[in-house]
Structures are given as structure tokens and as C-alpha cells.
């Protein structure tokens, strides 16, 4: 995608977010143009009057006009600035929100693909590094304004002498060549230095990362991290040292050409006053106007070049953002049958699955059937594919081949929302949000069914904690969002997550390692209440605590991505298989 298209995309997005911002930018451009025109043209009348009639009243009027114009434009600039500043930040924040919204809308498949994780990190960089997005948005306005100035000045100069304009433009040509050369260099240099800069940032952040501080101290890693930071620092600085020297030379030459333009313009316009060699001679006032137009023209060129350069640079930063924004949203899965529920049966029919970007199959030929109300324990060693199975059932991924049938139909043939309403899950790496505890459980705004929330919270063993909080279920979770919030321990958070799954009132409930952060007593409480908690729902339960299987009707044993066994605890204990091995290993610890 070339720069023009990228800029057009950003302009279009900004327009959608805040049209008034774009309109203000245009108005601002008009004001800027007017201001320059006034500065260039008004003094002419004053000087001509001084050189000629010297009428005091007229002189005062002309001077008054200049002062008034100064005042007017200064005021107008302040007026638009008031609107622009606020809206500029607003657009920037909205763009950042757009990024987050995009991530929420992406198909989940991409979210576990390292490529997209990296892409997202790079995309978010434009909001952190030099506020590239904000600079770009404002820079685009500057570009427009300087462009208008240039055209206005060119028109004025043209009325005096096309030849002078052509001379100046020829010099502009030289500048453009310089600029093109430098721009190419700069782009290469930034392409090279950006990844290094990202790495540098990674290591700098490690040194201040709170979670690492124990490791850093006890494994004496300060030296290792410090060295890496200094290394990258030196690398970046060497590159930049060279870059800035080159930029200094380039901008210096650029400035010299500007001075040359000014000198040329002065000499030419002076000769126009003195002689008739190049055309009809002009007045002193006109002299000042044309000279000032030429000076504005050449400084306008510099500013224009500058904002062009900066916009180009910022657009370069923007590539990952644009790539991300242009990814397709997950298809609105509106089509399909509405799923009426409840879940009567679940059938995996020869399901194969491979993670995107991976060579190895995560699941191979998985087939099993679960009936309504059954409690199924899913068991296997780390990496066997237990959580993958669950993710497929939650429609986070599609199988490569085979089908997953619920109530006899492929789950992907159901309308998405109606299907998801019937599924509730506590994932291994579940997340809670900075809402109140109650809202975290109900996932809705306040005022919903408080009794029910409180009852559930008590059932999962949160009652004691809640009564110790002055605001009970209205306590805000986490301090990151609001300092008045409360931090819960890992075990308590896990309980909130379980209550959230139960509140959803789905007919299928999935618990993936829901007790890993709980102590034996709390864990036992969850196990023993499991039947009550799950009620008549169909349930999947994943745990490394083999004892939890006892509370389930049947056990699905997964080994190396395949179904190794599917039977009751008693029967499996009689077989010499994976399950008995796992169970016995743990049981031995409690023997005697």
C-alpha cells in the first residue's frame, strides 16, 4: 500500500470518528492562508503611502488594518486551536479503541497465532512511540496548510514575474531531489532501527517488570539485563549518530538553498524597482510585498518538505496498524439455525485439529458421545490436547476435518449467539474485569438479580470474603482501574470465575483446571458441591487432581491428541492404562 492510500485510509477513519475535526482542520487551513496573505499584502499599502503621499490619516488607517488583521487572525487561530487540540486527542484515542475493537472482533483462531500477537504489538506501537498517530493526524493538517500557503505565494509571485517563479521552482526541484535522497535513506534507516528499538524496549521493560524482580535479585540477573540494554542502546545510538549528522548536513544545505532563494528574490525585485530591464518598474511597497512573498514561499517549501517528511515517517510506522485494521472481522455468524437448547447430546465425530502455523496435529480422530446431564472428567498429561478439545466445543476454532454435533447437528450450523448462550466455561487462564464483583459474575450492568448473584457467590465459597467487604458484591475488582478497588487472591478470583460460569445458566458447563490456586480445603469444597453446582447441566471437568474424576460419571482419557479411553472410574481402574497410572501415582502419595 503506498503512502497516499494509507493517508487516505487514515483520513477516512478520522472522518468517521470525528467529522468536525476534519472540518476544523479545513477551516484552520483557510485561516492560515488568510493570515499569510495579510502579512504579505497589507504592509505594501503602508510603505507606498510612506514613500508617496504621507497622509497621516491614511497612514493610520493602513497601520490600523495591519494591527487589526494581526489581532483577528491570532484570535481565529486560538479559536480553532481550542477545538482542534481536544479533537486531535479524541481521534487518537478513538483510533486506539478501534485497534482494541478489532482485536475483539477478530476470529479467535488468530489470537493464538504468534504472528498476529506480534502484529498487534507492533500496531500498538504507534500509540506509544512518539505518539505517531497523533503526530500523523496533526501533521496531515500542517501539510495541507503549508500546501495552501505555497500555492498562494506562487500566485502572487506569478503576477510579478513568471521567470522569477520558474527560477525559484528550479531551486525547489533541487531541494526535492535532496529530499528524495534523504527520505529514501531515512526510510531504510528506520526500517533497520525500528526492530532494534523494539528489542531495546523489551529489555528495558524487563528491568522494571515487577514480576521479575525476585528472579533478578536471586539469580543476579541485573548484570545480564543491564548489559543487554546497554548493548542495544549503543547500537541504536550509533545508528542515530550517523543519522543526525546526515540530517544536519541535509537540512543545512536545504537552508542554504532557502537563503539563495531569498537573495535571488531580493536582487531581482530590487532590480525591478530600479530598472525596467525585466518589465515595468514597481513601487517600494510592491517591493516589500513581493520580497515577503518570496521569503514566505521559500520558508513554506521548507515547512512543506518537513511535514511531508514527517508524515512519510509516521506513515511508515503505521503499516502494522493498517494491516491489523484491514483484517476481516470474524464473520457475523448470524445465519444458521437458532439453537433452542438445552444440550441433549454432544458427539465428536472423527475430529482432527491442527493449530494454525503448527505442523503437528493437536487432536487426531477424536470420537465420543456425551449425553444430557453427564459429568465428564477429561484427563491426560500436560499438552495432551484437553484444553484444545474444549476450545473446539466453544467454537473458538473449527476442526480441520470431522464434525462436532450437538443435538445431532454440526455446532457450526447453529446461529452463533444462540449456541454460545448454552455454553459456559471457566478457562485455565480465565480473566476477570475491572467491574464490581457482582457484575463480573453476572456480566451485566448493575441491578440484575442480586439475590441470585449472592447465592452463587456463597455456593462457591466466597461468602466469608464478601461479608468482610463493606460494599459486598458491589466492590470494584482490581486497583489498576480505580485505586478504590480491591485485589482478590488467586483462589478468590478463581471462585468468582466459577460463579460467573454458573450464573450464565447454560446447559453445558466446562471447567478447565478450576481449582489449581485453591488449598485442599477449598478444593474439596468445590468438588463436593460440584454436583449441586452443576445441577442437571452437562459438564466437562479438566483437572490434574485425579481425585476430581471420582465426582464425574465418565472419564475421557486423552493421550497424544487421541482418545485413549472413555469409561467410568471403576472400570478404568481395572484396566492397566494411562488413567490408572495417573491415578495411582497420586494415590500413592496418600497411602498409609
Amino acid at each position, binding site marked *: 500500500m503506498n503512502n497516499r492510500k494509507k493517508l487516505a485510509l487514515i483520513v477516512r477513519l478520522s472522518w468517521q470518528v470525528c467529522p468536525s475535526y476534519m472540518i476544523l482542520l479545513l477551516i484552520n487551513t483557510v485561516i492560515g492562508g488568510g493570515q499569510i496573505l495579510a502579512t504579505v499584502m497589507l504592509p505594501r499599502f503602508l*510603505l507606498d503611502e510612506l514613500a508617496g503621499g504621507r497622509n497621516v490619516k491614511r*497612514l493610520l488607517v493602513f*497601520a490600523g488594518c495591519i*494591527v487589526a488583521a494581526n*489581532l483577528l487572525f*491570532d484570535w481565529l487561530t486560538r479559536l480553532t*486551536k481550542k477545538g482542534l487540540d*481536544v479533537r486531535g*486527542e479524541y481521534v487518537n*484515542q478513538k483510533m486506539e*479503541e478501534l*485497534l*482494541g475493537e478489532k*482485536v475483539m*472482533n477478530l476470529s*479467535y483462531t488468530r489470537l493464538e497465532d*504468534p504472528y498476529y500477537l506480534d502484529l498487534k504489538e507492533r500496531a*500498538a506501537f504507534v*500509540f506509544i512511540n512518539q505518539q505517531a498517530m497523533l503526530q500523523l493526524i496533526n501533521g496531515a493538517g500542517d501539510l495541507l496548510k503549508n500546501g495552501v500557503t505555497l500555492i498562494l505565494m506562487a500566485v502572487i509571485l506569478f503576477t510579478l514575474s513568471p521567470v522569477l517563479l520558474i527560477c525559484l521552482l528550479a531551486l525547489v526541484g533541487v531541494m526535492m531531489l535532496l529530499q528524495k535522497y534523504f527520505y529514501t535513506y531515512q526510510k531504510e534507516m528506520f526500517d533497520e532501527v525500528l526492530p532494534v528499538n523494539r528489542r531495546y524496549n*523489551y529489555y528495558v521493560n524487563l*528491568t522494571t517488570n515487577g*514480576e521479575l*524482580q525476585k528472579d533478578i535479585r536471586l*539469580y*543476579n540477573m541485573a548484570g*545480564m539485563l*543491564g548489559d*543487554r540494554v546497554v548493548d542495544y542502546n549503543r547500537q541504536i545510538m550509533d545508528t542515530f*549518530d550517523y*543519522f*543526525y549528522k546526515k540530517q544536519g548536513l541535509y537540512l*543545512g544545505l536545504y*537552508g542554504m538553498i*532557502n537563503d539563495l532563494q531569498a537573495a535571488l528574490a531580493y*536582487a531581482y525585485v*530590487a532590480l525591478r524597482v*530600479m*530598472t525596467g530591464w525585466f518589465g515595468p518598474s514597481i513601487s517600494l511597497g510592491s517591493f*516589500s510585498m513581493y*520580497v515577503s512573498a518570496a521569503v514566505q514561499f521559500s520558508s513554506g517549501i521548507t515547512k512543506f518538505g518537513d511535514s511531508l517528511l514527517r508524515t512519510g515517517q509516521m506513515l511508515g510506522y503505521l503499516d502494522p496498524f493498517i494491516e491489523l485494521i484491514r483484517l476481516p472481522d470474524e464473520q457475523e455468524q448470524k445465519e444458521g439455525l437458532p439453537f433452542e437448547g438445552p444440550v441433549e447430546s454432544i458427539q465428536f465425530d472423527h475430529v482432527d485439529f491442527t493449530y494454525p502455523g503448527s505442523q503437528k496435529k493437536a487432536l487426531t480422530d477424536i470420537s465420543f458421545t456425551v449425553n444430557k446431564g453427564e459429568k465428564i472428567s477429561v484427563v491426560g*498429561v*500436560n*499438552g495432551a490436547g484437553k484444553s484444545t478439545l474444549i476450545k473446539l466445543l466453544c467454537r473458538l476454532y473449527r476442526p480441520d476435518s470431522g464434525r462436532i454435533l450437538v443435538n445431532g447437528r454440526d455446532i457450526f450450523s447453529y446461529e452463533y449467539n444462540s449456541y454460545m448462550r448454552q455454553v*459456559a466455561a471457566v478457562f485455565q487462564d480465565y480473566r476477570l*474485569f*475491572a467491574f464490581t464483583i457482582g457484575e463480573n459474575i453476572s*456480566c451485566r450492568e448493575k441491578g440484575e438479580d442480586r439475590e441470585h448473584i449472592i447465592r452463587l457467590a456463597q455456593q462457591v465459597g466466597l461468602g466469608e470474603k464478601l461479608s468482610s467487604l463493606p460494599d459486598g458484591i458491589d466492590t470494584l475488582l482490581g486497583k489498576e*482501574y480505580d485505586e478504590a478497588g480491591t485485589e482478590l487472591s488467586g483462589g478468590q478470583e478463581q471462585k468468582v470465575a466459577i460463579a460467573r460460569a454458573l450464573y450464565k445458566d447454560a446447559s453445558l458447563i466446562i471447567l478447565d483446571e478450576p481449582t*489449581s490456586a485453591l*488449598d*485442599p*480445603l477449598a478444593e*474439596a469444597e468445590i468438588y*463436593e458441591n460440584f454436583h449441586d453446582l452443576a445441577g442437571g447441566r452437562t459438564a466437562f471437568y479438566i483437572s*490434574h487432581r485425579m481425585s476430581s474424576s*471420582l465426582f464425574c460419571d465418565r472419564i475421557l482419557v486423552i493421550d497424544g491428541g487421541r482418545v485413549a479411553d472413555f469409561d467410568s472410574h*471403576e472400570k478404568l481402574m481395572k484396566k492397566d492404562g494411562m488413567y490408572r497410572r495417573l491415578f495411582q*501415582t*497420586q494415590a500413592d*502419595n496418600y497411602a498409609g
Partner: protein
Amino acid sequence: MIRRMLANVKRQKPALFGVCALYTLAAGLYPFLAVLLPRFMIGELEKGSGASVKAVVMIAAGYFVLAGCLGLARTYLEKWSYNKLSLLRLDYLKDCCVKIMDMAYFHVEDAGFMMKYDKAFIATQSNDNGVEGIYHRLFELPALILTILILTIQIGFLSPWVLLGLCAGLLCRVTASRKSYAYRYGRETEIAGWRRRIQYYSRVTSDFSYGKDIRMYGLKDRIRANYDRQIDGYRKVRALVAGREYRWGFLALAGLLLGDALTYGTLLYRALHGMSIAEFSMYLTAAATLTGCLSQAADKFGVILGEGQYVRALYGFLDTDLGERGGDHPACSSGAPEIVFDDVSFCYPGSDTYVFRHLNLTIHAGEKLAVVGVNGAGKSTLVKLLMGLFSVTEGQIRIDGTPVEEYDKKALYSMFAPVFQEINALAFTVRENVAGKLTDIDDAKVEEALRQAGLWEKIEGLPQKTEQMVLKVIDENGVLFSGGENQKLAIARALCKDAPIVVMDEPTAALDALAEEQIYRDFDGLVQGKTAIYISHRLASTRFCDHIALIGPDGVEEYGTHEELMERGGEYYRMFTVQGKYYRENAQRDILEEGRPSYE
């Protein structure tokens, strides 16, 4: 503060002073040329028919040569030093990082710490603020002052009134911007609050790890609506600030009017009384240039004043003793030291709830101790105290007879090989991760450690073996370990460190039964001839320890061997039975028949 900043330049890069002097000369004189050019040009033109073409060409050429050279020098020198000034900032940033990695650990867990030193960290964050912001301004100011001096003298000689007008105008502008800044500053907390909440939603929406729950619980619209509300809230506050700034702008406008009126009035008066048009227009340009320079200088002073508070905070942070050194006792020499907790009570800094009180515990040399207790009993806290990450509130902890505080911090840390609950693999190579350093790595030792931890097979299968990068942040071919493998990597690291005290804090929470068993078995090898502490919810782990300490709010509540504690029938017995009962032979029948098994 400024003096200290300059002293820093003198130490790091004294050449900058010379460069700044040259820059001052070039940049200070450059604007003057633009003032003089019209004067000479119009002066020549005013001669009417006596004007000479040669003179005009000479003036233009002279201008080009002078301006070209000064301009080039100015730009080049400014850019040359720009990066050198950035480097000064990055050095300070590095100092901050080192300070954070060295300071006493308890600051890390103090939620207020980052807030307290917030400003110090901001001081090194960007090119345009804090340290570097001030350095750039300090570099540019002398040139501005030179220009201002020359122009002031020039205009002052002509008419003090013009000067007065310009100064009054400047005063108005500065007042207006200070006032609106003060208004903004007064709302800073509120603005920061909105910003933080926006930041939160930006993170939650774009953090992939929230993706599953957002989809599962249909939270998208809810979050989106909240996010919008925060952005709108911020916008409203910003609009208030901008509105205030705009209103104060009228004062600035009045100043502008005053300055312009006095300048034009005086100059017109003079022009009517004999001043040449050349001089008239020169003074107009001079007045405009002076106005520009004055407000630039005011801006720069403003930035130095405003950013100064951040730099002062930075120096404050760097100068504060944050307990990085500890005592000066060297590391203990024994291979398996004795550890004594002597009547230890502890509450976290800033809290007055005791985690435990009067904890007495002796871990004999070479002994393996299991520490158990319910969630929140203070098991992890106990080892944090031992490792000197926190200091006891009352009582004393001694290692081989020497109180923990008396050890040099580095020496103290060197005595432990811990494996923590949360495992953090870093984007370094496998061997660097295991060895914890970049140079002088003993590869044989790394390999041995990886073998013992049961990770060697996996590492051998990697294309670059131990040279393989971990994580994909830095190297896209980096290896991503599973939870269990990460755990093994952490164990290998502990093995490689070969320290006299081994601490395992809940290392098997995420592991399957077989991997867990493996770790239990390896534990023996890991701690051979060392003093060891093992913390776990899995009471089975106590089996291979010599003693078990059950801790709670009243310190060590039960202590003894597994058999002793089971016999005693206390809290340990209860926890062990609860966890173990389901592994009994008839457990499931009990559950199915009676709904739930009974115990006690």
C-alpha cells in the same frame, strides 16, 4: 539541579560545551541577517536614480554567503548534538533501571512506590520532556539570549516605548499561559484518572489473553460502551481545560494589541519625522523578530521550570537510599546452612494486619522442610523474609547464626536457589536463561542441569540446541515452552546455580500427575546435601521431607514428621485426609452411594 545537569555533561561529554558556544554564535547572529538585509536593500533603492545595480547584487550575494554559512553551521551543530543529548537521557534511564533492579525488594510490591516516584521515571521517558527536554532547551537558550540582547539594544536605542510595548505584550502572553497551565495542573488528578481508565480498556480490548472470556461471556458491547464512556469523559475535561486556555487567550490578545500599537505608532511617528523607509522597515522586522525570540525564550524557560520538577524527582530517586546494599557480612561458607526463625512477626509495610506472629522455627543444616497451610497463611511470605526480600517486623531470622540483615544483599541472594510459583522465561538463549548471565557460562554445568531437570531431550531436539532463543519477541524462531517445560527450565536454573539453600514455592500447581511425580523424585537429587524448603498445596509433597511445619496466623501451628502430625489429628491431619480421601479404594462407591464421603 541545572548545575548538576551541567556537571553531568562535563563528565560525560565535555565537547558539548564547545559545540554549544559555536552554535550560539551561529544561531544567535543568523536572525540578525534577515533584519539587516531589507535595510540595506531599501536603503540602496531609496537613493532613487543614484542606486547602483552592482551594490544591489553585492548586497544579495553578501547575504547569501553570510546567511548560508551561519545557517549551515547552526543546523549542523544542532543536529550533531541532538543525539548526544538523547544519550545523556538514556544514561539516566539506565541508572534508573539499575537502581530498580538493586533496590530492596519490598519496594517492588509496594503499590505506592511507583506512584511516589512516578515523576522520576517520566523524566527519562521522552525526547521532549524531562531531562532531555531541558538539555535541548539549555543548548538552544544562549543563542536566543544573544539575539535578544542585540535586538534589545538596537530597538532600545531607537525608542524605549517600542521595547516597553513588546515586553508588556510578552508579559501578557506569559501570564495567560501560566494561568491556563495552573488550571490544567489543578485538574491533573482527574485527567490522570480518565487516562488510566482509558489505558485499562485499551489494554483489555487488545490483550489477546482476554479474548476467550470476552467471547464466551458476550462482553464485547459492554466493554466497548465503558471504553466510550471513558473517552468521552476525558474529552469533556480536556474541553474544559481548552476552554480556559482560550479565555486566557484574550489577555494574550490584549498584549499583542498593545505591542503592535506601540510599535507601529512609534515607528510611524518617527517615519513622519525623518526616518528613512529602509530604517522603518528594518525596525518593523527587528520588532517582529524580537517578539518571536522573546516568546520562544519564555517558552523554553517555562519548559525548564515545568520539567524541572521531574528532573528533581529523578535526582531524588537516584539519591535516595533504597536499601540496595544491606549489611557487609559475606555469604556463609557451609554447604548446608542452618536457618533459625526466632520469634518472627510480620505485617506487610503499610498494613497493620499481621500475616503471622511469634513464628519460631529451626531448619537444621541439610534438612528438608515442607511448609504447608491454607491459602493466605503466609507460606510464600515466609520465604520472602528468609531471602531478605522483606524485613521482619519483629524478631530475627538467622542463617548460620548471622541475622539476615547483616549479610551483604548480593551475598545473601547468592545463597539461595529458588523455584517460584510463577515462572518467567526470558528472551535470552536457553543457556543464558539457565546460567543467568551472558559470559563465562559453564556449558557442561548447564547441560548437566538441563539433564537433571528432564529438559535435555527437548533442548537437543531444537535446531540450535542451547543456543536457541526462548520466546518469539526477539527472534521469531524462538522456542515457546509449555507450562511444564517452563517449570523444568526454572528447576534447571536452580540446579545450575548450585546454592546451599533450595526453596521450592508451589512448583507443581500446573503440572500433570506424572510430571509432578517426576519433580518430587528430582527434588531429592536437587537438594542433596543442602538445606531445603518446599512449599505446596499438594500435601503429598511432604512425604519426602524430613519435617513439616504447618503455619498460620499464630506462626508454626504444628511441627513434626508426617507420622507425628497424622497421629496428632490436628489441622494437618484434616487437610491430608480431605485431600487423600478420594484416593482410597472405595472412595467412588461412597460418593455415588451417599452423595459425598464422610470423614472425621
